C-alpha cells in the first residue's frame, strides 16, 4: 500500500468539520506559509515539487503559476475548476464531499502564493450537496480567522466564493469556465491571450483543478523536494484515481505515481481484480476522452515491459499503442462488454456537450454519434469504420478548444484497436443484438497510425 497524502485521514469520523481536521494537522500548511514564507518561496516550492496539473492535461502547476502576469494595480484571481464532469471521473467530488477543508486550505495557500485577494471555486451545477458542504466549510474557516480580512494577523486579505455552474461539460475548459463565471454563455475563448495574461474580467488568472490545489497542502507541509521523491521520473507525488467498471472494488484510490497498472487492477489493496472471475478486455485509463486500450497494451508496453500508472508510461508509444493519464478516470471493461456500444456512448456524450461554436466539433461530433448509433444497432456498413476514422481526423486539432480532440480520440482508438469487433457488428447484424463479441483478438502486429495523404 503506497503512501497517502490527500486521503490519509479520510476515514476519521467528522473530518469534514474544522475541529477534527485541525486535530489531524489541518491548517498547519497555511500557518507555515503565511508566517514563514513569501509568495515567491511558495511558487518556488511548488516548482520544486514537480506537481503536474491533475485536471487532465498534466501541465506543471509551478510553471503555470510563474507565467501569471503581475502588472501593478490590476487584481489577480485564482479560480478552482471543480466542474468535474468527464464520464468515469469522480475524484474531485469525493474529495470535496469528505474532506472539504483540504481544498479550502489549499485555496488559501495558493491565493497567498499568487497574490489573489478574491478567489472562486466553480462547482458543477449538479453537485449541489458539495456546494453546500463547501459553503459550510468556508463559513467555519472564516469564523476561525483563516479567511476574510487580515488572515492570522499577516495583513493578507482573501475572500473565497463558491459559484455553481449550469451543468455543462464545456465549462470545465478553463476559458469557457471564466466566461461562465463572468455570467456569459460558456463558450471557450480563442487563445491567445491565455488566462495567465487576460483571464477573469480581463485580469491575470490561474485556473487549477481541485486535486492540484489540495495537493499544495502536503507540498508545503513536507517541502517540495520531499514531495518530488514520491513517484517516478517527472510524474511526482500521489494521484487520485476514480476506478469504475467491472472490478471487484470500484472507488477512489490514492496511488503513488509509478505503481504498475497490473498491480492497480489485480491487487487487493486497489481494484481487487475483475469482478465475477471474468477476463480483462479493455481499459479507458484517464476518463472518457483518452484513447481506449486493449488488455495486452494497457498491462504491458509495446516492448514487453510493464506499464506504470504515470504520465509518461501511460502515454508511451504515442497514440499507436499508448493512452494518457488524463484526469484519472479508470474505467475497466471485462470480456462481456461491447467496445462498440461504449464508443457510441462516449460519442453521444460529446455530441450532446459540444458548445456549437466552431464547425468541425459542432457538426462532426453529431455525425460520429449517428454513424456509431447505426453500427451499434446492427445497421452499419463496412465503410463506416473508415468514415469514422476520417471524420475524427478532420475534427482533431482543428477546433478552438480540446473538446474536439477529446471527442475524436476515443473513436479513433476504438477502431484502431477493436476493428474486428466493429466488423463483427456489420457482418452479424442480428447476432450482435443478442450476444456480445467477447475478448478481442489483440492487435498483433501493432497497427500503424493513419497518416494524412
Amino acid at each position: 500500500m503506497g503512501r497517502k497524502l490527500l486521503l490519509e485521514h479520510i476515514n476519521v469520523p467528522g473530518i469534514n468539520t474544522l475541529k477534527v481536521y485541525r486535530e489531524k494537522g489541518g491548517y498547519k500548511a497555511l500557518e507555515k506559509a503565511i508566517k514563514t514564507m513569501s509568495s515567491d518561496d511558495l511558487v518556488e516550492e511548488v516548482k520544486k515539487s514537480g506537481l503536474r496539473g491533475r485536471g487532465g492535461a498534466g501541465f506543471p502547476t509551478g510553471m503555470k503559476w510563474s507565467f501569471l502576469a503581475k502588472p501593478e494595480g490590476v487584481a489577480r484571481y485564482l479560480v478552482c475548476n471543480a466542474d468535474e464532469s468527464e464520464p468515469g471521473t469522480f475524484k474531485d467530488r469525493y474529495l470535496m464531499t469528505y474532506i472539504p477543508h483540504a481544498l479550502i486550505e489549499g485555496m488559501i495557500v495558493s491565493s497567498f502564493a499568487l497574490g489573489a485577494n478574491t478567489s472562486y471555486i466553480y462547482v458543477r451545477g449538479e453537485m449541489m450537496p458539495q456546494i453546500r458542504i463547501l459553503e459550510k466549510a468556508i463559513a467555519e474557516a472564516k469564523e476561525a480567522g483563516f479567511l476574510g480580512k487580515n488572515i492570522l494577523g499577516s495583513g493578507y486579505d482573501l475572500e473565497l466564493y463558491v459559484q455553481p455552474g449550469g451543468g455543462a461539460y464545456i465549462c470545465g475548459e478553463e476559458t469557457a469556465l471564466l466566461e461562465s463565471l463572468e455570467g456569459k454563455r460558456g463558450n471557450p475563448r480563442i487563445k491567445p491571450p491565455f488566462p495567465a495574461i487576460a483571464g477573469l474580467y480581463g485580469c491575470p488568472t490561474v485556473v487549477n483543478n481541485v486535486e492540484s490545489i489540495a495537493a499544495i497542502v502536503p507540498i508545503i507541509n513536507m517541502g517540495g523536494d520531499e514531495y518530488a521523491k514520491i513517484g517516478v521520473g517527472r510524474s511526482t507525488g500521489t494521484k487520485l484515481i476514480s476506478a469504475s467498471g467491472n472490478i471487484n472494488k470500484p472507488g477512489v484510490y490514492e496511488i503513488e505515481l509509478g505503481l504498475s497498472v497490473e498491480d492497480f487492477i489485480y491487487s487487493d489493496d486497489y481494484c481487487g481484480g475483475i469482478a465475477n472471475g471474468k477476463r480483462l478486455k479493455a481499459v479507458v485509463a484517464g476518463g472518457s476522452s483518452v484513447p481506449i486500450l486493449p488488455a495486452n497494451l494497457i498491462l504491458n508496453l509495446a516492448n514487453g515491459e510493464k506499464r506504470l500508472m504515470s504520465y509518461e508510461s501511460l502515454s508511451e508509444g504515442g497514440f499507436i499503442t499508448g493512452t494518457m493519464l488524463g484526469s484519472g478516470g479508470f474505467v475497466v471493461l471485462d470480456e462481456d462488454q461491447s467496445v462498440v456500444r461504449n464508443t457510441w456512448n462516449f460519442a453521444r456524450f460529446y455530441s450532446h456537450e459540444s458548445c456549437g461554436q466552431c464547425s468541425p466539433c459542432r457538426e462532426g461530433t453529431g455525425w460520429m454519434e449517428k454513424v456509431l448509433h447505426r453500427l451499434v444497432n446492427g445497421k452499419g456498413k463496412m465503410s463506416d469504420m473508415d468514415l469514422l476514422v476520417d471524420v475524427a481526423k478532420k475534427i482533431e486539432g482543428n477546433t478552438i478548444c480540446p473538446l474536439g480532440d477529446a471527442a475524436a480520440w476515443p473513436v479513433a482508438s476504438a477502431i484502431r484497436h477493436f476493428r474486428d469487433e466493429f466488423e463483427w457488428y456489420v457482418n452479424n447484424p442480428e447476432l450482435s443484438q443478442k450476444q456480445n463479441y467477447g475478448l478481442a483478438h489483440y492487435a498483433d502486429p501493432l497497427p500503424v497510425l493513419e497518416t494524412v495523404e
Partner: protein
Amino acid sequence: MADKFKVTIDGIPTEVEAGTSILNAARQIGGDIVPPAMCYYSKLEGSGGKCRTCLVKVSKGSEKDPRPMPKLVASCRTNVMDGMEVQNITSPEVVEARKGVVEMLLINHPLDCPICDQAGECHLQDLGYEHGAEATRYEFDRRTFEKIDIGDKVQLHMTRCILCYRCVFVADQITQKRVHGILGRGDHAEISTYIEKAIDNDFSGNVIDVCPVGALTDKTFRFKNRVWFTKPVEAHRDCPTCSGKVTLWYKGEEVLRVTARKDEFGEVEEFICNTCRFDKKATNDWVIEGPRKVSRHSVINSNHYNELQPAQVVKKNLELQEANKEQFERATKF
C-alpha cells in the same frame, strides 16, 4: 506603434503593421492566397475563429522563435510575428483540413439553393464550389428547427445557418440594444430573438448583409428574382441616419432590392439604415452614380467572362504555380 513586421505567405513576402492578423496580411497581398473567411468580419469586433475555414499552417513562428506552430491556426485571429512564414494553398495539410471543414459545414445544410434568395452571392456556395467534394458522405436526416418569425422585414431560415455569429455581433455592436443571440448548445444551437421578439430598430437590416449564407434574407425581396438577373447600380441619397451609400439592384426599370456596398471580400463598406434598405425603392429617391463593377467570379457576370486566367500573384510565383497547376492548366486550355 510604427513597427513593421515582415511576413511571408505562400512564398510572397510583405510588410505589415504589428498587430495585423495573418488573414489581413494575406488580404493586403490579395489574390488566390487569401484564406476564405465565413465568420470573420473586419468591421465587427470579436468576430472570427469559429468557422475554421481560414486555417493556415505557420511553418516558422518568428525570427526570434523559428519553431513552427504545432497545430493549424485560425488566420483571422492569429497575429503576425516578425519573420513569420505561413503556408496556405501551398500546404496539402491546410487544403485537406479546409476540405474537411467545408464538408462539416455542408452536412446539415439543406442545399436548397434553387429556392434560396442568397444563391448567386452566397459565400457557402463559393466555398463549396472551390473546396467541397462532389458528393456528401452524410446519410442521415438533416437538422431542422421550429420556424421562428423575427419580424416583417427579415426572414430567418435557421436550417441554412452556419452559426458564424456575425449577426449576433451586429445586434451587439451596431444596433442600440441586443435583441437576439444564440440559444441551445452543440448542433442544436440556433439564432433566435429573445422571447421571439421581432428585431425592431433602425439598423437591424444589416444582419442580412453580414449573413454569409441564406439564413437571413430580405423579406421585401423574397422570391422576387434571382440575383444574377438583376443589375447592380451604385447610388446615394441624403440620409439623416446613415451614410446613404448603397447598391440598387435593378430588374428593368424597377428597384427590387437595396443593399449596402460590399468590398472584394464580401464585407460591407458602410452599414445602412432600414429606411434606405426597405422603404426607398423608387429610382427618384436616389442619385445614381453608375453601374457597379462586378467581380469576374460573380454569377452576375456569367457568360461574360472577359478572360479566364489565374490571378496576377500566382503568375509571378513559382511555388504558387505548382500549387495551382490543375487550375492553371484548365485556364490555359480555354
